[in-house]
C-alpha cells in the first residue's frame, strides 16, 4: 500500500530503540512519557487556539464580517494575544464561594480532553494508547467533564451558575446515552472496541458506507448528540448568554476561565475526531471501488492530512449549527433526546445487529 510510507511506526520505534540502548528501561519510559505529555500539551494549546481563531473566522463569514484582522496577518495572532491577556488577568474569587470546589472545577474540566485525546489515532503509528476497550474508554472518560461543570455551577454560589450547572448536568447525562448508543451501533458492525483495529477495518471502505442505513443514522445521531455533549449551540443552554449571562463559568476569570474555554474547543475536536475515527475511516484515505487511478492519487496524501481534513470538516459542520440555529429550551432538549434520539438509537442498534447477523455488511 502506497500510504504506508507515511507510517509513523518506524520513527517511534527508532526513538524507543535508541533510548533503550542508551538509558535504563525505567528512564526510557519516563522520557517517553514526558515527550508524549509535552506533545499533547503543545497540541492542545496550539490546536485550541487555532480552533478559537477558526470559530471567529467561520462565524464572521456567516455574519458577513471579516472577523479578527488587526493582530498579525489576517488576525492570525489574535487568539495568541487573547490567551496572553487571559494569562495575565487577575484571578478574581468571589467572597462566598466554596473555595476548594471552585478552584478544583476548571482542572476537572480540562483534564478530560487530555485523557480522551490519548486514545485517538492521528495517523498510522501515531497513537499513544491503544486499549482493547478504546471506545469504551472515551465514553467513560468524557462523562467526567460534567462533574467539573456541576462543581463550577455549585461552588460559584451564583444562581445563574447553579441553573447553568444543573442544565448542563441534565443535558450531558441524557446525551451521553445517545453518544454511547450510536457508538455501540458501530461496535456491533466492527466487532471490536480497539480503536486502531476499528480504523484498520475501514481500509477497504469507511463504516458510514459499509454499515448501510443504520451507520448513516448513527452518524447523524452521533453528531447531534456530540454537539450537545460539548455544550455548543444550539444546545449551549449551560452558558446561554442571553438567559444566564455566562452560566456555570460566570464567576471565573483569567486562566480559570480560559480552561473552560479551551476545554470546550478541545472537546469539540474530540467529538469530531471520534466521529471521523468511527464513521469516516480515521486517517484512511477516501477510496472508490474500481477507480484504481483515483485511489492511487488519494493514497499519496498522508494519513495525518486526511485525519485533520475530515476532523476540520466535522468541526465546520458543528460551527455551522451554532451560528445558524436558535437555542433550544431545556425541556425541548430533553424531549429531543428521550423521545426521539433514544428510541431511534435503540431501533438502530437492532437494525445493525440484524444486518451483521445476516452478514450484509462486508
Amino acid at each position, binding site marked *: 500500500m502506497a500510504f504506508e510510507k507515511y507510517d509513523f511506526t518506524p520513527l517511534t520505534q527508532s526513538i524507543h530503540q535508541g533510548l533503550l540502548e542508551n538509558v535504563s528501561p525505567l528512564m526510557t519510559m519516563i522520557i517517553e512519557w514526558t515527550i508524549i505529555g509535552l506533545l499533547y500539551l503543545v497540541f492542545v494549546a496550539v490546536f485550541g487556539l487555532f480552533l478559537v481563531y477558526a470559530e471567529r473566522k467561520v462565524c464572521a463569514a456567516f455574519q458577513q464580517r471579516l472577523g479578527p484582522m488587526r493582530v498579525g496577518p489576517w488576525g492570525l495572532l489574535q487568539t495568541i494575544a487573547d490567551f496572553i491577556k487571559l494569562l495575565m488577568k487577575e484571578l478574581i474569587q468571589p467572597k462566598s464561594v466554596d473555595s476548594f470546589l471552585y478552584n478544583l472545577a476548571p482542572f476537572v474540566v480540562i483534564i478530560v480532553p487530555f485523557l480522551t485525546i490519548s486514545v485517538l489515532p492521528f495517523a498510522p503509528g501515531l497513537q499513544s494508547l491503544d486499549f482493547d476497550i478504546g471506545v469504551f474508554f472515551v465514553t467513560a472518560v468524557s462523562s467526567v467533564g460534567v462533574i467539573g461543570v456541576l462543581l463550577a455551577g455549585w461552588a460559584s454560589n451564583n444562581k445563574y451558575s447553579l*441553573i447553568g450547572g444543573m442544565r448542563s448536568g441534565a443535558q450531558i447525562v441524557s446525551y451521553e446515552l445517545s453518544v454511547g448508543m450510536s457508538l455501540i451501533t458501530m461496535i456491533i458492525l466492527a466487532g471490536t472496541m480497539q480503536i486502531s483495529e476499528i480504523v484498520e477495518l475501514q481500509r477497504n471502505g469507511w463504516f458510514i458506507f459499509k454499515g448501510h442505513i443504520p451507520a448513516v443514522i448513527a452518524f447523524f445521531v452521533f453528531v447531534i448528540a456530540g454537539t450537545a455533549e460539548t455544550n455548543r*449551540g444550539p444546545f449551549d443552554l449551560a452558558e446561554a448568554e442571553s*438567559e444566564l449571562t455566562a452560566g456555570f463559568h460566570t464567576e471565573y476569570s483569567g486562566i480559570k476561565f480560559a480552561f473552560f474555554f479551551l476545554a470546550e474547543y478541545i472537546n469539540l475536536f474530540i467529538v469530531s475526531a471520534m466521529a471521523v475515527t468511527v464513521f469516516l475511516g480515521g486517517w484512511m484515505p477516501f477510496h472508490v471501488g474500481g477507480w484504481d487511478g483515483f485511489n492511487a492519487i488519494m493514497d499519496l496524501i498522508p494519513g495525518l492530512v486526511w485525519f485533520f481534513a475530515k476532523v476540520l470538516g466535522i468541526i465546520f459542520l458543528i460551527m455551522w449549527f451554532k*451560528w445558524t440555529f*436558535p437555542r433550544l*429550551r431545556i425541556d425541548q432538549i430533553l424531549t429531543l433526546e428521550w423521545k426521539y434520539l433514544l428510541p431511534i438509537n435503540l431501533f438502530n442498534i437492532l437494525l445493525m445487529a440484524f444486518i451483521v447477523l445476516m452478514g450484509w455488511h462486508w
Partner: protein
Amino acid sequence: MAELKEIIISSDNIKTDEYLVNMGPQHPSTHGVLRLLVKLEGEIVHNVQPHVGYIHSGIEKMTESLSYTQIPHLTDRMDYLSAHMNNEAVVCVENALEVEVPERVKYIRTIMAELQRIASHQLWWCATGMDLGALTTFFYGLRDREDILDIFEETCGARLTLNYSLPGGVMFDIHPNFQNRVKTFIKKFKKILPEYDELLTGNVIFQERSKGIGVLSKEDAIAFGVTGPSGRASGFSCDVRKHQPYSAYPLVKFNEALGTEGDTFRRYQLRIAEMWESMSIIEQLIDNIPEGDYTAKMKGVIKLPEGEFFQRVETARGELGVYIVSDGKKNPYRVKFRSPGFSNLFAINHIAKGWKIADLVAIMATFDLVIPDIDR
C-alpha cells in the same frame, strides 16, 4: 422493603423552595438597565416584578421649564429607536395652535416615520434572534438598518436622535437624493426581507420556542393597555394611524396587521408584516411629495392657549400619548407622555407565569422593550 418505604416517605419531605433572581439591571437580554425580580422554582417562572427607574431622566419635569420648540429635542431621547415618531408628537402643539402645516411636511414626516419604523423593527428582529440564541441575525439586521440610518444622516445630519420635526414643520428640507435613495432602499430591502424569514421564521427550533408561548388574550391586552404590534398580535385593533390618522396617513392605503393568537410567534410575525406595510406606505408617498415649504410660518415664541391638549401617535412600540396642560405661558404647565413601553412591560408578569426562564427572555424580546421609553 421497609427501607424503601422510608426512602419514599422521606423523599416526600424534600422541600423545593422558590428563589429570587435579579435579572438586571445589567443583564444581556433586558436590553438596557431594566431590573426584573424573577421568582423561580427550578426553571419555572412564578412571578416577574419589574423595577424601573434606573435611568429615569426626568424628561416630563424638564419640559416644564423648556419652550415648545425645545421640547421635541427631548422626546427622541425617550424611545430612541422610534425617535422620529416621538418627534411627531409636535402634532399636538400644532393642533393646539390650529396651525395648518404644509402638505409637503406631512409627506416627509410620514415617510420618515415609516423608515424609522422599519429601522426599529430591524433592530428588534436582530435582538430577538440574539435573545433566542441565533447570533447571526444580529448582524443581518444591523447591516440593513445601516442603509436607513445613512438616509437619515443625509436628510438631517443625525442617525439616531433625529430632532427633525419641530412645531410647524421639519427642520430642513429633504436632500435632493432623498427620493432616489429611499426607492433604492425599498427595492433592496424587498429582496432581503424574505431572507429574514428563511433564517429565523421558518426555523423549526425558533417555531418550537415561540409558538403558543406567552399567550396574551385580547381582553388582557386591552386591560393592560398593551398597544402596538404586541397588542395587535392579540387582536386588539389599536393602530392610531388607522383610527385617528395624522400627518399623511389619511392619504395612504395600508392594512393594519392583526393577529388572534397573541403568542410570541404571532408578535414576531406581526412586526415582519408591519415592515412590509411600511414599505408599501413609503412607496405610495415617495413619488408624490408635493412642492412647497418645509415649515409653516411660526412665531418666534410659541405660546399655547390655556387648556389641555392630547395627541396620540403610533410609534414602533405602540401608542405614544402626549398630554399638555398649558396655562398660556411659553412653557407648558405640565406634560405627560403616555409611553407604550411602560404599559407593555407590566403585561409580562401576567403572561410569563408558569413558563421557563428561556420563555421569559423570548417574551421580553417580542415585547420590544426600550428602557428609556419606560423610564423617561
